[in-house]
């Protein structure tokens, strides 16, 4: 019998604990929070993509009734420009200063140049329009490949648009390509998209009596506190950062934004609380974007389909500045560039390039969707070239289940996997070829596949830290578990969920181990003023790293509980186990204590073991030994109307493996959302700047997020291959769907169009592009 044989809460599709407040409209997002004496802020933003600021006249705005102050860049006496957290050893990363308000030059449309503060939310927006800025336009750099080659410069003083070069390789590439009988090369574009959380960003800064409380729609309150302290020169103990209810992030709120810093500064200056909430149009301009790279990929193989080498050169469009992780993103993909395949030689060469656009940074998947998109497209392209079935080609090159833990040519050790099983499960679930065969007259159907892995659960700090990959932080996570005298439990996590359901998942982990109902386990997060430190929610880390730290803190509680019970029952602690909700002596389950009885004994310490501290509360910090590598197989059928170029996804099936499920309902939900995020990129969404650097798709009317009418329901299944990395065996799942789905869709569209002679096409596959590809193939 297992030591935790109580109600098996782990594995149950429980309804979420966080939902009642959300479905009743009782949650408190940033825009719902106001404090007495609060002022409102509005930012004046550059309409120019690149210009010198000749002068700023704030007099008229400042004279408006209710306006308290107008600030420009040089007014803000901050300690440092906005942070960038990556210093890879031995690699020069050019980092032009990026201030909360631009000082002398603006570098993209939406770059903030002034801050208007006043008593009325609407009046400050009106007043901002009265700030008169004279710009001297400078040459605008928009096209990534042209920017890379040189010519006009985004930052003249750097003398180049190239920010950095970074490579990761392993194996003998030359030998690999020499051994290849077939080589396929493609230029793969992964275009710019927006995170587009439905909740806009917002900030409420409240500096009073020497201490700052900053509430922000953020994924990373702990990082935010640190950088607020550093930027404003306030001791960290006097800064409290709070993430209230957060309405989605998808990486776009994994950032230290200038608005957060500027509002904190202004609140201190004015000694008043100051609030700002972005409009959607403002958010599209000034909330970081994602993706935006061009890869020149090359794959080599023998005639019989053994892949011998893979090389890719990636140009990454960084936008105008480096934000928190801007240049890091493509490198995250490089670690899994060979995907699920055993390729003896692999190399990724990345060049970061500045352009006059909003910076790019992490968006759901962050570098790994791009990597998966290219390897999975290249596999299909290679299969076509070889005249081989694309699933056969995949199977031929899969890392075998026996080979795990599998060290790839890059030296990355994949923790566990069974790729053939995931693919087999997918093929059993859905007969995609049969659906393809039923195409209505005049329509074309195609089938696409994607067999993927990814790297997540960020991260082992010794690998990702300053002397390794170069992130200037650790990436551990923490948890504190407090059993109250009544037996109710409060868990404090350093992660900062914003839709992922961690209040429920973590409660299940704890409930299972303590023999309590998850309803009596409250999970607190997102406030640096409560509980231990943490690092936030991103990179599919919150269960694999945060959940494991919760499990470890709970294990310490269990250890203490057993000692208390053993002492009270005059047994040995090793003989105490959890049986039907009671910690009891093995073999005599009727003699036992519930966790509530144990905590009663701990808090009224009349009879504790000699020397034991009272109370029942434990803290655990956890830094994983390795990343985790979720994987799976996705397949879909699309239907193309060759007359209009319109693409419909008519079937989508997916098998994902994130280890043993804690809450299957929540996992499925993450996969659904992830898939649609990627379908959005593949078919609809595009951040598009025109040649003058003006944002053309700058609101939800022009930026086409997929709606319910644009996507189908999904057929999902799971395999469960435990990870040896953590005691839960779990891997991340928040990004998996997004990582897998864009090549699946793109490969399906190519499959549909092949009879018309189209053999390759780049996203986004809107009607016009598809129609043009068809027309071009006719010529």
């Amino acid at each position, binding site marked *: 019998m297992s030591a935790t044989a109580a109600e098996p809460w782990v594995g149950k599709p429980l309804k979420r604990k966080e939902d009642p407040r959300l479905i009743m409209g009782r949650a408190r997002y940033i825009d719902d929070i106001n404090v007495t004496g609060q002022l409102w802020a509005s930012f004046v933003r550059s309409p120019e993509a690149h210009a010198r600021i000749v002068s700023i006249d704030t007099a008229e705005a400042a004279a408006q009734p209710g306006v308290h102050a107008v600030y420009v860049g040089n007014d803000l006496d901050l300690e440092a420009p906005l942070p960038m957290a990556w210093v890879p050893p031995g690699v020069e990363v050019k980092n032009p200063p990026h201030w909360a308000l631009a000082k002398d030059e603006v570098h993209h449309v939406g770059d903030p140049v002034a801050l208007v503060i006043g008593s009325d939310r609407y009046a400050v927006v009106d007043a901002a329009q009265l700030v008169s800025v004279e710009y001297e336009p400078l040459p605008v750099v928009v096209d990534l490949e042209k920017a890379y080659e040189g010519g006009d410069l985004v930052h003249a003083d750097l003398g180049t648009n190239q920010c950095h070069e970074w490579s990761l390789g392993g194996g003998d590439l030359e030998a690999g390509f020499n051994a290849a009988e077939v080589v396929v090369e493609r230029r793969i574009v992964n275009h710019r998209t927006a995170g587009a959380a439905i909740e806009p960003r917002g900030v409420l800064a409240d500096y009073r009596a020497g201490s700052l409380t900053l509430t922000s729609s953020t994924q990373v309150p702990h990082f935010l506190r640190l950088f607020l302290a550093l930027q404003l020169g306030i001791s960290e103990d006097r800064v409290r950062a709070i993430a209230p209810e957060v309405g*989605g992030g998808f990486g776009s709120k994994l950032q230290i934004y200038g608005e957060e810093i500027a509002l904190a500064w202004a609140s201190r200056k004015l000694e008043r609380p100051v609030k700002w909430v972005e409009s959607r149009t403002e958010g599209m301009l000034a909330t970081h974007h994602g993706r935006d790279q061009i890869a020149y990929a090359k794959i080599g193989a023998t005639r019989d389909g053994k892949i011998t080498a893979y090389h890719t050169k990636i140009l990454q469009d960084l936008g105008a500045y480096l934000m928190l992780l801007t240049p890091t993103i493509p490198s995250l993909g490089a670690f899994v560039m060979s995907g699920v395949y055993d390729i003896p030689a692999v190399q990724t060469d990345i060049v970061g390039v500045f352009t006059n656009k909003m910076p790019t940074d992490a968006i759901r998947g962050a570098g790994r969707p791009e990597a998966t998109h290219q390897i999975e497209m290249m596999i299909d392209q290679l299969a076509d070239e070889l005249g081989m079935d694309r699933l056969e080609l995949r199977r031929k090159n899969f890392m075998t289940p026996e080979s795990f833990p599998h060290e790839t040519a890059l030296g990355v050790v994949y923790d566990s996997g069974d790729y053939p099983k995931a693919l087999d499960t997918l093929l059993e679930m859905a007969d995609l070829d049969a659906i393809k065969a039923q195409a209505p007259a005049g329509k074309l159907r195609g089938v696409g596949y994607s067999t993927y892995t990814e790297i997540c659960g960020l991260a082992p700090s010794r690998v990702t830290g300053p002397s390794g990959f170069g992130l200037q932080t650790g990436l551990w996570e923490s948890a504190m578990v407090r059993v109250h005298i009544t037996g109710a439990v409060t868990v404090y996590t350093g992660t900062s969920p914003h*839709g992922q359901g961690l209040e429920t998942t973590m409660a299940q982990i704890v409930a299972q181990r303590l023999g309590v109902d998850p309803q009596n386990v409250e999970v607190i997060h997102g406030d640096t003023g409560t509980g231990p430190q943490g690092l936030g929610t991103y990179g599919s880390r919150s269960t694999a790293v945060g959940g494991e730290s919760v499990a470890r803190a709970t294990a310490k509680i269990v250890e203490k509980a057993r000692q208390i019970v053993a002492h009270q029952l005059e047994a040995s602690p090793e003989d105490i186990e959890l049986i039907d909700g009671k910690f009891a002596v093995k073999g005599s389950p009727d003699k036992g204590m519930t966790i509530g009885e144990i905590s009663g004994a701990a808090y009224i310490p009349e009879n504790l073991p000699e020397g034991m501290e009272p109370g029942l509360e434990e803290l655990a910090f956890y830094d994983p030994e390795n990343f985790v590598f979720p994987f799976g197989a996705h397949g879909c059928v699309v239907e193309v109307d060759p007359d209009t170029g319109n693409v419909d996804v008519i079937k989508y099936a997916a098998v994902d493996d994130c280890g043993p499920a804690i809450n299957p309902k929540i996992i499925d939900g993450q996969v659904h959302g992830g898939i649609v995020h990627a379908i959005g990129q593949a078919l609809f969404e595009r951040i598009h700047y025109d040649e003058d650097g003006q944002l053309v798709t700058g609101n939800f009317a022009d930026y086409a997020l997929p*709606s319910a009418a644009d996507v189908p329901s999904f057929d999902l299944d799971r395999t469960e291959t435990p990870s040896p990395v953590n005691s839960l065996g779990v891997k991340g799942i928040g990004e998996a769907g997004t990582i897998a789905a864009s090549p699946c869709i793109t490969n399906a569209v190519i499959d549909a169009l092949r009879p018309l002679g189209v053999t390759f096409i780049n996203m986004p596959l809107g009607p016009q592009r598809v129609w043009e590809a068809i027309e071009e193939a006719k010529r």
Partner: protein
Amino acid sequence: MAGSVRVTMTVNGAQQSAEVEPRLLLVHFLRETLGLTGTHVGCDTSNCGACTVHLNGEAIKSCTLLAAQADGAEITTIEGMGQEGALHPLQEAFWEHHGLQCGYCTPGMIMASADLLERNPKPNEEEVREALAGNLCRCTGYHNIVKAVLAASEAS
């Protein structure tokens, strides 16, 4: 302030009256004047549907209407749909079927779905998807939202 107008409306069954700026949007009247913050704002082009409420029994996007235009109307917001222990069947269904993640789109989704079920008590999947096309969700991929609405329709 360029003058003000008095608006009176019934919100979740209670009569409300206030002097407001003529340009005040209904969504801001609900959120800021009445403190009913369950109705959200997600865009400025009336595309997202986070602000959906019922006006005289029909779903509307409250960001597209001035408070003054709703003078005399009956408004229902998410706060008027159900309470703890007495949830609306759609609230129950969204909870049961995991039809929400971050919850930001959820009040609007529930109000739009209630309008659909009012007009068409037994919709099929395609009808649900069409009816919700004006409500954007970035988290759920819509799968479980659709499932929840169909389940609520079954239950009633």
